[in-house]
Every structure is written in C-alpha cells, then in structure tokens.
C-alpha cells in the first residue's frame, strides 16, 4: 500500500472568526501532479501554507510521507515551496540561490556544485548561473525558484500560483515545462491555482475548493465531464444550467419546456434538480437518434475565430449557450442568424444532473 505523499486529516483553520479551511480530508499520491483549484479566498493558499508550515491549523493534522508534521517547524519538514512572487534572494547569484537549501543541510561543497549544475541544466538556465536575480526575466526567475526548491528532493513540492505573474504565451510554455519536469523528476507536485485551464492541462488529479471545502476531487476529465455540484459545473468551463422539478424522467424547466433526461436514476417525482450541459456538447445538426432534441430560436451569435457561440432561446426565459467549431464544412452551409429557428440536441450522457 503506497503511503500518500501528503495527507490532510480534518484540517481546519479559523481566522478572525471566519472558517477559512473547513475540515479538509485529502490524500495526494506519491509522484502525482495534484492541483488545488478554486477562486480567490477559497482557502487553497491557506491550505498550502499550512502544509508548508508557515501557518498553524486550528485543528486537524498534516502528514507528509506518513509522518505527522503538524507541529514541525517549516525548516524541518521535507517539503519545499515555490512562491508566487518567487522570493529569490537578491543578494545571491543564481547558483547560490539554487544551492541554498543544500548548504543548510551541510552537504559537501563539490556535491552541491554538481547538483546545482545539473538542476540548472534541467531548467535550462545553465548559462546564467553567475547572474543575479535582478538581471533575469520573469520566466527565468520562475525557473530559478523552481530549481531552488526542487534540488532538495522534497517529498512534496508545493507551488503557489507560480505562473500567475507570467504573460499568456510564457505561461503556456511553462505549463508544459513544469509537467515534463515533474514527470522526469518524479516528485509529487501540489499545485495551487485559480486558473482552470492550467489545472486541467497539467494535473493528474484536481481538487476543486470553494469556501474552505473540497467540492470535488478527481481526474481532469472526471471533474470536467461529471461535475458533482453546481459550483464545479460553473467554475470549470461553462455550463448551461437548467433547474426545475423532476417528473417521470424529465425535468420541467419552464412552462413550455420539459426536457427528458433518459438514463437518470435516483430522483423521485417532485424533486428539484439541476441539469448541466456543456455548450460544446450541444449539436445543431447531424443529430443521432439517441440525442435529446428541442427546438429553439437563435437570439444572438458571437464569432470567436475558431468557434462561434450561439445563444438559443428554447423556452420562456430559458436561453442555452451553444458552442460550435467553425469547421470548413460548416462555413457556407450552416451559418445561423438571429431569428432563425433551429433544433438543438445532445447525447443523454452529456446532461449531468446535479444536486
């Protein structure tokens, strides 16, 4: 049985009367790239800081590699952090920044030099060893922060929104790099972010946090395709949410709109349920027999280059967002204009019922 790299048991943090982290239970497997995803204020950074040791929990415990470290000071925990602001030591050059943790451990000087050189190669900063942090670009500083933390081979590497300060292109490049470095080094990464794209593209598993609790935890596909709560459905990607009373296999969304939800079990007549369907899962043509279909009217269209978004009115006060890729075959044929009457449809498995 593999000991999880990090375990949180009943972790709670109350600060100034507010419960910032609420009875969290979590296991992060060894070697995993795990993301804590959530909006600002959801408690993800606080959780990270508690794991790092910069903050004491009000109750609960933190285990790293099976060992209870709740009352261990940060410098004794086998955990390293990459800070959002990088927190580089400006008075030291890159090499001495990276080797800082090793020097504290009293490792032999020659060894340190060798490992620092290796690490700098890994993050592609081999030539900048003697430079000062102030001479580096944002992306380079980020890599120094990563190297400095990684070189200590911690049981867990904590990353606190490390890519937030980078511009878009650089961020995408760094995401790919981080992922490949993690694969190569095999260390458990615990990554905190508010950017769902980042979380989905890099992680083995994602935990969605909101208001101090974990709403859902699973693989990116899991979390995206099968949200278990309204928050999860809305926070990740966009969803069309339709609420109404359940009756005989259909949900009454509006007076003139009863949507069948075949294959759904577990609700009794009269229950208030919410059905979530992702815009890209909705078709406007080429329907298959298994699809649930309903007519509607185009309210507006909006062109986004590779996709077009349509707002379709399907019932009183019910507007559905549909996302279509602008494939060549669709160009001349199926361009809808506001006012057009259309049919929309989706596969039953893409309509997720939320409680």
């Amino acid at each position: 049985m593999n000991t999880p790299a990090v375990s949180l048991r009943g972790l709670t943090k109350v600060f100034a009367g507010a419960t910032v982290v609420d009875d969290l239970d979590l296991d992060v497997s060894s070697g995993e790239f795990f993301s804590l995803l959530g909006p600002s204020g959801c408690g993800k950074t606080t959780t990270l800081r508690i794991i790092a040791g910069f903050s004491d929990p009000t109750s609960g415990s933190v285990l790293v590699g099976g060992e209870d470290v709740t009352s261990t000071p940060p410098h004794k925990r086998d955990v390293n952090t990459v800070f959002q602001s990088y927190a580089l030591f400006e008075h030291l050059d890159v090499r001495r920044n990276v080797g800082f943790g090793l020097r504290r451990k009293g490792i032999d000087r020659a060894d340190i030099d060798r490992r620092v050189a290796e690490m700098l190669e890994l993050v592609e900063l081999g030539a900048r060893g003697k430079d000062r942090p102030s001479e580096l670009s944002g992306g380079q500083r980020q890599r120094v922060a990563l190297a400095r933390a990684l070189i200590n081979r911690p049981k867990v590497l904590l990353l606190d929104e490390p890519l937030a300060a980078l511009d878009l292109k650089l961020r995408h490049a760094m995401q790919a790099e981080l992922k490949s470095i993690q694969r190569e080094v095999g260390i458990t990464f615990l990554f905190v972010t508010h950017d769902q794209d980042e979380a989905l593209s890099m992680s083995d598993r994602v935990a969605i946090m909101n208001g101090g609790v974990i709403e859902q935890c699973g693989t990116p596909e899991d979390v995206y395709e099968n949200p278990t709560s309204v928050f999860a459905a809305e926070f990740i990607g966009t969803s069309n949410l339709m609420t109404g009373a359940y009756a005989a296999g259909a949900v009454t969304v509006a007076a003139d709109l009863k949507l069948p939800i075949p294959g759904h079990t577990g609700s009794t007549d009269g229950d208030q349920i919410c059905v979530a369907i992702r815009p890209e899962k909705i078709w406007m043509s080429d329907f298959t027999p298994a699809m649930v279909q309903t007519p509607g009217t185009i309210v507006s269209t909006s062109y986004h280059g590779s996709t077009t978004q349509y707002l379709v009115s399907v019932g009183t006060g019910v507007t559905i967002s549909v996302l279509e890729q602008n494939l060549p075959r669709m160009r001349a044929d199926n361009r809808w204009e506001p006012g057009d009457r259309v049919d929309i449809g989706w596969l039953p498995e893409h309509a997720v019922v939320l409680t």
Partner: protein
Amino acid sequence: MAVDVPTRAPEDTGERPRRRQRSSQRTWLWGSLLALPTAWMVTFFVSSMVIVVLLSFGNTTRDGFPVFGTTTENFSALWDEVYLRLFLRSLVYALATVALSVLIAYPVAYAIALHGGRYKNALIAAIVVPFFASYLIRMYAWKALLSDDGLVNSGLRNTGLGDGIELLNTPWAVIGGLVYGFVVFMILPIYASLERMDLSLIEAGKDLYHSPFRTFLTVTLPATRPGLYGGMLLVFLPALGDFVSAQLLGGSSTFMIGNLIQQQFAEGQNWPLGSAMTVAMMVALTVLMVAYLRATSSRAREQ
C-alpha cells in the same frame, strides 16, 4: 502577517501528540528583538522625561543642589508677565519661521521637482548636505557675516551705502537664523509630495484657470497638503525650542524660551525652574499639536 495563536483542538482523541510547538515560530524572535531597544528607550528616554516632570516640582537647597519636592512655586513663578511675553515671542518667532519656510520651500521644491530634470537628485543633495552639516558652524558663519566688522557691513561701508547697520541683535536676525536652520525640513516633505503628485493635474489647472497663482491654490496646494503639514510640524517644533540662533544672532531683547531654559541649567543653576519651564513648554506644545491635528484631520474629513 498576523501572529498565529495556537488554540487547543476541541476534542483530544489522544492520537496526536499535544506538543504545541509553533511551526510558525516567528514571534519569539521578533518579540525578543524588540526587548533590548525598548528597554533602552524606556530607561533613557521615558525615564528622562519623567524626571523632568518630577524635578519641576522640586526646589534648590541652600548649597545650590536641586532636589525633588512637591512644591508648585516653579510653575506659579512662570505665570508672570515676563515669562509669558517670552513664550509669546518664541511662539511668534516659530510661526514666522514656519511662514517664511513655506514661502521659500514651495518655489524651490516646485522648481526642482518640475524643472530639475536630470539634476533633480543632485540639487536636492546640494540642499540636504549643508543642513546635516553642523548647524553651529553655519550659525557662527552668519554671525560673522552680519557682525559689525563682517562682510555685509564692510561691504556697505566700502560702497558708501552707510555706516553699517545693526543686523545682529534684531528679531529678524534670529528668525533668519531659524529659517536658515530648519527650512530644509519644509522643502523635503513638500518636494516628496510634489514628486508623488500627478502633474497632469497642474497642466489641467493651467488650462482651466489661466493664472499660475490660482492653479497653485486650487491644484498644487491641496495635493501637497500632507507634505505641507509634515513640514510645518518639523519646522515649528525645533524652532520653538531653539536657543542657538537667538544666542548667537540676537540679544537680550530677542530671548526665546530655549535661551531661558538653557540659562537655568548652565549659568542660573536653577534646575527645578528650568525643568518647570521645559514642562510648561512641552505642555503648551502638546496642546498646540493636538489642536492642530484636530483641525487638520477634521478638514481632511470634510474633503
């Protein structure tokens, strides 16, 4: 970052060790760093102020030694026309110093901030350096310059403009000395305020009001108010208590509180009286400060 206060878990299941060694562990270090300097400040500064107050209730023994006591005769001695007039004079001089400082500081700070360009830092340094270099020497220099056989009067005589004017021993000499000594404390805060200001406001003001003076009143002045208030404080306080200027550049008719206090300790040997004067001055200062702060903050609230 707030101090983390460890709290006990509601139910101790007995599974985890209860040792609450704080992992944040920051406060012991920083708190203990505060201990020594605070002890020092309390010992030397706070206690010194306390002793001044205590001695002001004391008196002098027959042999001339100051002792503590519980008399208020020092204070009642101060409530005398001579002393009160002296205090008023000091107040007037200090206020005049502030006013003149403002009149000088604004143009200078303005010129440097807005037109100094590359030389801004050098200009400010050129102002700051003399001010931190020997107040005494510079006052002496003025004394030399303004004295009867000094440069100014000899120059006047040589050019036949007169037989020399009595420049020293006048209130203006003393005030001039005070301004000379403290105007930098008005220039720096105003300069700092100007630097932080959004200069396009001035441009806008010039467009709107056409008169530079009105622009100044309605745009620049309000925007630099914090600097102005800070400067007024930093000039008024030392000016009020100064004695060097009055001593070197003035005479008995321009005596300030500072001179009087100094006399009690240096020549007069009446320490309790001197303490009482000091206390009285500090009390008056505090009252003025409080009134001033009230006035400026209520004005700020009205904004």
